[in-house]
């Protein structure tokens, strides 16, 4: 099992290295000169050259790659072209904000999915089940940005309950988290409901009942344990949606997260920033997925043996 894990780790680190290289190359192959983007169109070549020298984009590609890689080895991802700040400190400002938003959305989605999925599994076609299906259908068909706009219109501009944009404390998390959660919820709900129906139909659930295990324990410990594996899997898949949804929500709600930073960085061809954001995001993905693999083993003893 240890070996299995180490092998996965090595695979993932290799993939990460590949991503690092790919993002370096892709950024530079994509049309767009950071100096020209920074300067107005009428800027003279002198000015552009000055910017290029400042950015270090005046040297040949191999030299840039070498300095980029040697930087990484030293843990130095460079300085943002636009913010003239080490990219790591920029990411350090934004990442916790995004993580907070994404986690709130995930918790909200999983929480609601659990509530409604369990209720729906216990009483298929009951009113909670129907409510869940309705919310899921809505979340599936309505795009995040539109949901975001509607939420702002109703709860911010209309009722004045929450701020429309920006981040000024936990109340700023509510609307964007709902908008993101709605995108993730349908899959979560479906998975939890199916897994719970499956779980509750297991004979060992009947055994547990026959042995007088209280109903809440049966639902939330025994059956849910059965749903844990698919749930963890779907949360792993959610991460992709979460990232996409978070970027959209950050734009719609002007939430100061890494998504907006990334969009601006790409638009400005802020190579060091784009590279660092990609690496950090990819690393998070890799490690979360490793964590999920680990969780699998914890959750299902049968996998431990097979591995």
């Amino acid at each position, binding site marked *: 099992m240890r070996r299995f894990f180490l092998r996965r780790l090595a695979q993932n680190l290799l993939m990460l290295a590949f991503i690092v290289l790919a993002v370096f190359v892709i950024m530079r192959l994509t049309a767009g000169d950071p100096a020209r983007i920074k300067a107005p169109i009428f800027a003279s070549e002198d000015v552009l050259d000055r910017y290029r020298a400042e950015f270090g984009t005046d040297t040949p590609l191999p030299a840039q790659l070498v300095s980029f890689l040697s930087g990484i080895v030293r843990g130095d991802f460079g300085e943002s072209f636009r913010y003239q700040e080490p990219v790591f400190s920029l990411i350090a400002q934004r990442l916790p904000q995004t993580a907070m938003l994404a986690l709130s959305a995930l918790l909200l989605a999983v929480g609601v999915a659990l509530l409604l999925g369990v209720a729906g599994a216990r009483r298929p076609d009951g009113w909670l089940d129907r409510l869940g299906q309705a919310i899921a259908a809505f979340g599936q068909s309505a795009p995040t940005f539109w949901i975001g706009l509607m939420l702002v219109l109703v709860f911010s501009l209309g009722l004045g309950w929450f701020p429309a944009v920006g981040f000024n404390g936990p109340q700023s998390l509510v609307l964007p988290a709902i908008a993101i959660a709605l995108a993730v919820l349908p899959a979560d709900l479906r998975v939890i409901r199916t897994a719970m129906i499956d779980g509750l139909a297991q*004979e060992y659930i009947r*055994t547990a*009942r026959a*042995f*007088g*295990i209280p*109903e809440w324990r049966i639902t939330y410990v025994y059956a849910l344990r059965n749903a844990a594996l698919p749930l963890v899997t779907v949360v792993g898949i959610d991460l992709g949606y979460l990232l996409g949804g978070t970027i959209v929500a950050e734009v719609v709600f002007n939430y100061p997260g890494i998504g907006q930073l990334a969009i601006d960085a790409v638009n400005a061809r802020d190579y060091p920033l784009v590279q660092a954001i990609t690496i950090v995001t990819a690393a998070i993905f890799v490690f979360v997925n490793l964590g999920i693999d680990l969780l699998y083993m914890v959750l299902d003893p049968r996998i431990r043996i097979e591995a």
Partner: protein
Amino acid sequence: MRAPRSGAGGPGRPVDVDALPGEPVLSVRNLTTVFATRAGEFTAVDDVSFDVWPGECLGIVGESGSGKSVAALSILGLVDYPGGVAAGEIRFRGEDLRRLRPEALRALRGSRLAVVFQDPQTALNPLFTVGRQMTDFVRAHRRASTREATRLATEKLRLVGVSAPEQRLRAYPWELSGGLRQRVAIAMALLLDPELIIADEPTTALDVSIQAQIVELLVDLKQRLGFSLIFISHDLGVVSAVADRVLVMYAGRAVERGPVGETFAHPLHPYTAALVASAPTLESVRGRPLPTIPGSLPGPSDRPAGCVFAPRCPRAQPICWAEQPPLAPVLPGREAACHFPLLPDAPATTGTARG
């Protein structure tokens, strides 16, 4: 010793054809369990009554689908949605389980009233160790430390003949062999010294060689511990080895009841007779083609107005189609629901209609 007391018994006093001394542990009266299906209501258990006396083993036999398991689950109050007990009385030690609050019923299950299910492979939770499951079950009823619960579990495992019980407790069910698993399941049932154990086909899923061991174990345990047992099985051989009395079910109805030996030797109901004829004995060689009962169980929509067995019965008369025979005493200690029971002295195709 078994004095017929047919029809006797005052209010609150269960009625049985051959009541043993004392009170019955379990007394089921007119149990009717219904499923609401898309096609309509389906009566899986139809007006079934029986008693289980202390220390007694009642066998329930019948074709697949005849309602044996549903009857057992009805007693436990575990009939799954969309089913439910529609009518009847289930008295356990005099207390009507149907009137019990859910919490009181829950507290009863697993402590005074325990179950052994058919397939230990699926009946045990693959995600928890044997020990975790057993201690959970103990602690659903008693405030006990993990150590106390574990000690109890170890003791019961030893009781059912599991070697190295401490080691088994740390194992997952799927790490054990089939026979061992069923021993574990029996040990679970014994955890809190129940008064009644319902074993629903506890041997069906096992290898033939192991079946006999498990049967022996149950018989032995019953003798030593003195609990009552409801033993559900297709296998008439096994039932005759374990049970004192037997209840024969067909299409949700109780069609015959009586001491196991007499009932199988001289069935009163044509269905029982067909069952016996098609059954391999414990000693018989498996694989030999068995005579089968012609026809099949009636579905929910084609239940006849009269006797449920009429469509398949070689002795059926017009009245059988028209009128449903009640389960009634035919011989001392023996009951059958048949207009024309197979009386030992009158093996004719004609009989006297009663009622």
